[in-house]
């Protein structure tokens, strides 16, 4: 750690803490501004279940006490912040009395798995293709086919998801339409289960990959054009180094640095896009949890899911910033 300048680290840490604090506060304040009373929603749900409810006022008061919304706002706020730090978002109102954190803990691995997989694949493929588009030795086909294919990469993954779902799941029936594993397999560390998970996860992952690799390819192309004109590239060529060696060790190595920073800026949008893909594929992740919670007006779950996703985003940005000085030593030297 001593190799990272302290001011840089401090700066990033402050940004991280502020992001989490502001996000948590927004998530808390917004529902408080709304005229909707969560206790009344809960009562309405009881009434819908039982036909009629006697002593409605007493039950309302009790519900409010249980939810802690009869206390002064400032106390509520600090209680909430304290809870959020240990991932305590209260109890789900739709599937009462399951804690929200338990629901999130169930959904999170699915989302993380899908995210890491599709992110790594798109980052590698996108940057490689972007580099090949500029490299003078790449086959002609690459230079013609990739720009044409990239037109479609401006589309959000939900639209590509619908299209892939229709072609490969509804029409051809190569892949299952929805879900994250088959109904007949038992979740566990078995080959059948793994196979089923891959089979179900293929289309959601593909719909994210086909529309996001172009973002990296485009950025990489612009950076590679700059690197191509640099003196060190010319020198490397003049020295007679192997072209492939120049491509990987001289050009891509230098061009990829700003891409890693772009990664930090883009990740929020990528995660939001994935939430929607999970919703249309009814994939067992955070997206489905969020969608179900919206349908049920289950506020604690909506808050919890939003908070955890924002936390994930902020943490990945922080991690990228933390790793960056090791990839680009100039950052270390400038501050020292």
């Amino acid at each position: 750690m001593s190799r990272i300048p302290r001011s840089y680290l401090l700066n990033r840490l402050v940004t991280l803490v502020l992001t989490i604090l502001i996000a948590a506060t927004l998530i808390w304040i917004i529902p408080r501004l709304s005229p909707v009373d969560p206790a009344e929603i809960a009562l309405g749900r009881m009434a819908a279940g039982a036909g009629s409810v006697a002593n409605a006022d007493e039950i309302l008061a009790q519900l409010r006490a249980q939810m802690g919304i009869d206390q002064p706002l400032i106390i509520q706020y600090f209680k909430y912040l304290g809870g959020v730090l240990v991932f305590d978002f209260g109890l789900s109102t739709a599937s009462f009395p399951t804690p929200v954190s338990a629901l999130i803990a169930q959904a999170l691995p699915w989302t993380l798995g899908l995210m890491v997989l599709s992110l790594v694949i798109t980052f590698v493929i996108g940057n490689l293709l972007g580099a090949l588009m500029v490299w003078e030795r790449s086959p002609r086909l690459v230079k013609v086919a990739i720009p044409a294919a990239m037109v479609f990469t401006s589309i959000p993954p939900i639209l590509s998801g619908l299209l892939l779902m229709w072609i490969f799941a509804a029409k051809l029936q190569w892949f299952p339409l929805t879900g994250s594993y088959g109904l007949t397999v038992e979740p566990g560390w078995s080959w059948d289960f793994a196979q089923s998970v891959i089979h179900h996860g293929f289309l959601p992952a593909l719909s994210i990959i086909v529309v996001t690799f172009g973002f990296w390819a485009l950025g990489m192309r612009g950076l590679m054009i700059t690197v191509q004109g640099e003196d060190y590239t010319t020198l490397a060529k003049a020295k007679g180094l192997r072209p492939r060696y120049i491509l990987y060790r001289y050009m891509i190595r230098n061009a990829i640095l700003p891409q890693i920073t772009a990664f930090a800026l883009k990740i929020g949008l990528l995660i939001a896009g994935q939430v929607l893909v999970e919703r249309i594929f009814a994939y067992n992740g955070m997206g489905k949890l969020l969608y179900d919670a919206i349908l049920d007006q289950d506020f604690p779950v909506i808050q919890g899911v939003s908070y955890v996703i924002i936390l994930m985003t902020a943490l990945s940005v922080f991690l990228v910033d933390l790793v960056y000085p090791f990839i680009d030593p100039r950052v270390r030297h400038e501050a020292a």
Partner: protein
Amino acid sequence: MSNFSTDDNVAEATQPMTRAEKRQARRMRRFDNPWLNPKLLWGAGLLLGIVLLGILGRILWNLDLVFTGSATLKLPPVGFENLRRQPGVWDHPLGTDGSGRDMLALIVIGAPNSLFVGLLASLIGMTTGIVLGFTAGFVGGRTDDVIRVLSDVMITIPPLLILVVFQSAFGDVSLTMMALLIAGFVWQSPTRLIRAQVLSMKQSGYVQMARLSGAPTSHIMFREMLPNLIPYLFGSFIANVTTSIVTAVGLEVLGLGPQRIPTLGRTIYEAINAGALIQNLWWWWGIPTLLLAVMFIGLLLINLGLDEVSNPRLRRLS
């Protein structure tokens, strides 16, 4: 051919140009005016097409057909048959959805709505960004610190999730309200961009010169610096339009967003919920999806075209 040359003292060509030469000449002229590059024109054309669809549709088509139950349910577009073996009819050339609304009327109203949300949100975000970016770059000090940290923080928060919380708490929103809410999340990138550019431009010769000759700050900001920023501003504006529309569509597909006005995202939401994919009602979700895709491709092409304007190295003659 002297009219293709930048030099006046050239002899007239004695032989007619070959096709390849003509193509080369066209490219040369394009090189002279970067704003006329084909990507930019194609992108603008696609978006204009959607605006025209909205205008012409309102004049030529009966928009009352957008109400529920105004036609037979689940009719296919003309030339196709649905699962009940009903053929498409010319009264509803693009078919009808699961509650009997005419698809053509739906997209005539819905497509410009999506574009409107994107443009309005991005315009507000852009204006905020210009003001904050210039302020941060010029004033510096504590003000700069606050603006920089705030935009750094807000850029990592995905707008979709905060807006989900907002809309599920408040219920129905109007189209303008949704645009305003999204605008609260698209001012960060223009702010950062302009701040960085202003900081580097402040050191440049022509700004120093203007300052030494006693030009007022507003003159330096708007007459000296802003014109140089225009390609970047346009690029950032278009990128924000895309982000705004993606966010709006995302909210609509989750069943939030305006509930009483037809939007493309809401149509997709209803189609998914009604199982349109299994029932092979492809026109119900497919037509709005296609329109959105056209919109995004148009925006991307404009952005690529603007890149060529601001980064001449991307313009190539070959």
